[in-house]
């Protein structure tokens, strides 16, 4: 007997009798003999809970977590504060052991939480509608691109080189197989080069992806790009950091058509890169092209307010190959965590997180560049990440920092060969003055 398998021998006998089978083997006679494995699986023996837990702790202890390291690494995954209530509430098993709310009468908890999530994401982004989550930021951005590139055949899309390299890589994989050309727009001093973008947009490519704050943490002024894109009847997609939206102008205010982004910072742990959640929001005009699940408010037979999945005619289970996307399971639990996070931090808290991150990042920049050993790589307004460079290769600096239990920045030359020795430093509200000073001190002596 295994602890997860309840049948006793008697149960099994009784059931087989009822079916009219002699043994469970009889239930597999439909599998041709030559296709049967005919041997035992070459796997471990079953472990008890104690053995399992020991084994897992052994593996986990081989990793250095942010409990032991001071994290100045960002680049798309962020060490922001997660209030204790988030995990407690998201891990209520009525939430996490349910599936997609196809039976709304017994799924009002999930449905209402998604409705609240949608409301808060729309408020943050300044957009009209959003969906119940995508796999992650990168795939959300690709879905936004696919929304924009309507007739996929021999089409193209422009993406700024200041967009996260991982996002551009995922975009390229998808678009390669859809015969959509991905055109990278160059950058100048760490932002999208508007002069170089112009001829590309005017040449008829009707979609542009930018990131704000961009991969280097720089806040790009979208005013000119927006005007240019819309003057050419094109669509503007913005890849946004939700935490920054506590203080920065929303994409909606900037006239963006589709917003995508990585929602991990909203109450989800780093977890070696996943599970996170992608968010995607757009205008009412593009609503029916949106992928993924959407919750709407309605009423039940007694006129009581109730929530239900809506606009399902866009989805794969109805439209099959004509669907707006193939997504089915999404990142529901991570979206729930995001909803709980946004609720807990609230109007003032999210703003304070954004302000503290920005102020601490600016303090860090000042400390790191004060002696002249490191210089700012760009001279542009930034949010919580910034790039510096010195004479020492970034990899060497990081190796040294690690010896002092500091997780250094992202080594920019890995993705931008021209930015030799560039280090992208991230500072969240969790970092203290003492930690920043320590970083500056250690970098000074490398």
């Amino acid at each position, binding site marked *: 007997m295994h602890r997860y398998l309840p049948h006793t021998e008697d149960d099994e006998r009784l059931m087989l009798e009822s079916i009219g089978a002699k043994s*469970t083997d009889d239930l597999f006679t439909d599998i041709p003999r030559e296709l049967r*494995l005919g041997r035992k699986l070459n796997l471990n023996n079953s472990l008890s809970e104690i053995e399992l837990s020991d084994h897992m702790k052994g593996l986990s202890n081989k990793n250095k977590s942010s409990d032991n390291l001071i994290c100045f690494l960002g*680049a798309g995954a962020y060490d922001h504060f997660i209030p204790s209530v988030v995990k407690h509430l998201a891990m209520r098993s009525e939430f996490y052991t349910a599936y997609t709310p196809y039976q709304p009468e017994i799924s009002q908890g999930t449905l209402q939480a998604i409705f609240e999530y949608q409301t808060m994401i729309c408020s943050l982004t300044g957009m009209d509608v959003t969906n119940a989550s995508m796999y992650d930021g990168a795939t959300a951005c690709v879905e936004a691109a696919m929304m924009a590139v309507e007739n996929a055949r021999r089409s193209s899309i422009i993406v700024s080189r200041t967009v996260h390299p991982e996002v551009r890589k995922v975009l390229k994989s998808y678009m390669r197989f859809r015969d959509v050309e991905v055109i990278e727009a160059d950058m100048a001093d760490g932002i999208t080069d508007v002069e170089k973008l112009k001829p590309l947009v005017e040449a008829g490519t009707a979609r542009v992806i930018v990131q704000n704050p961009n991969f280097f943490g720089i806040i790009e002024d979208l005013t000119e790009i927006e005007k240019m894109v819309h003057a050419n009847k094109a669509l503007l997609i913005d890849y946004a950091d939700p935490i920054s939206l506590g203080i920065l102008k929303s994409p909606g205010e900037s006239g963006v058509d589709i917003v995508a982004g990585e929602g991990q910072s909203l109450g989800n742990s780093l977890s070696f890169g996943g599970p996170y959640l992608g968010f995607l929001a757009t205008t009412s005009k593009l609503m029916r092209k949106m992928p993924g699940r959407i919750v709407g408010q309605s009423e039940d037979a007694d006129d009581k307010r109730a929530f239900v999945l809506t606009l399902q005619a866009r989805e794969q289970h109805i439209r099959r190959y004509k669907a707006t996307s193939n997504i089915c399971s999404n990142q529901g639990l991570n979206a729930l965590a995001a909803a709980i996070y946004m609720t807990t931090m609230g109007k003032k808290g999210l703003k304070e997180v954004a302000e503290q991150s920005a102020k601490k990042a600016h303090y860090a920049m000042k400390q790191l560049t004060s002696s002249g050993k490191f210089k700012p790589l760009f001279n542009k307004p930034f949010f919580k990440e910034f790039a510096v460079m010195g004479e020492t290769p970034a990899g060497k600096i990081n190796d040294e920092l690690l010896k002092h239990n500091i997780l250094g920045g992202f080594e920019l030359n890995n993705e931008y060969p021209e930015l030799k020795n560039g280090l992208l430093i991230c500072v969240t509200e969790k970092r203290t003055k003492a930690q920043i000073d320590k970083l500056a001190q250690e970098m000074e002596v490398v």
Partner: protein
Amino acid sequence: MKNYNSLIFELSKEGRKAYSLPPCDVPDISLDSVIPPSLMRDSEPELPEVSEVDVVRHFTNLSNKNYGVDTGFYPLGSCTMKYNPKINEDMANLSGFSNIHPLQPEATVQGALKLMYELDGMLSEISGMDRVSLQPAAGAHGELTGLMIIKAYHESRGDKKRKKIIVPDSAHGTNPASAAVAGFEIVEIESDKNGAVDLDRLKAVLSDEIAGLMLTNPSTLGLFEKNIKQIADLVHEAGGLLYYDGANANAIMGIARPGDMGFDVIHLNLHKTFSTPHGGGGPGSGPVGVKSELARFLPVPVIEKKGDSYILDYDRPDSIGKVKSFYGNFGVAVKAYAYILSMGGEGLTDVSRKAVLNANYMMSKLKKYYELPIDQVCKHEFVLSGLLENDNHIATLDVAKRLLDYGYHPPTIYFPLIVNNAIMIEPTETESLETLDSFIDVMIKIAEEAKEAPDILKTAPHGTVVRRIDEAKAARSLILKWDGTYLHKE
């Protein structure tokens, strides 16, 4: 608190807060001095202002309006709603797994890489494939990744004509949708009267334009595709590849393997077969497995072992690239890995045996009251076609809604599309005989009610927190976020 009916926004009161942060300890600056005010928001985002107790009660009350596997029986066909072991959640929450950054140096994440490498090996053994990537985030994402691999394979041979994918009409909606996202044309083939692939119809569409065939085995009817070897041979002879949708792998672990059936590319669903929770819609994880000839096309990075250490290998020129940031839903992979260790090889085989036993037991009892269109031994699930006697025109939806009154999550309904009024029941192996019997009794009772008191079914549910919901109204009024205008109706 069944009648709890507040939105969090309706509880909001200016000045309340649920969070605490330490005072900002760096010298204060005015952000206006470093960020141009034109780039800043004019007004604060409309988020709630509530206390911590408000947050806790609100989401606790919402959770009480939900039904999960921990609440009760959840025989949602095709979704494998088995018990989600609690220890796995604890393991994924260990700080060494949950608090590591994806871009940390490899030397600081050796445990995580080892786990992923070993899980690749375990899933390869279970499926009979040679290499598995954990990058795809769900089943549909795995399908898309697999189809990209198939396309890359044909292109690498200079074979550019193969732009079509064959999908049986019994397939899940994600199959054709994924093929379309991967830039394929879809050729749908009609199944035979037993829901299996019709060999003549298959032959008729095979040509040098076919890139491959997508198949679920056991099929979406819960039946083993007996001709699989022949199907594989036909597709391979025509130069195509065979894709396996692993949604139904819970039926065959340790008994048969897609890799031995002739499949070239597969995905598995960790959130079905390997017990990771469904999260109210996700996160899932849809690892993709391939035969060795196709391993060079797998997404980057691939985890390799070099001496005693594990590395992320990006140096793979033929790779399709990345399909997701970083390495997939790692936290989900941790739970699946823990599950496999808990079960062991023999345990997993027992899982499939018991899953199939449970399904056949229920099928043998229920076919006396509900129409069973294809009466043969089933695998881990079976599909009924509405009530056997149905003079009162009771819809499958009515049966499902009535089950809610009896405290059950209904089966999957109206899928697969090739069965009228489909009721797709997947009990899973973690359910006891008593649970199955109680559910069977209720299904029989509902069949009686259908004859004697049809209105109870047509107006069901009666005892849930809300009653049947007006979906048309939702689609008409399109209230997709709180607009602040709703007044309490109670």
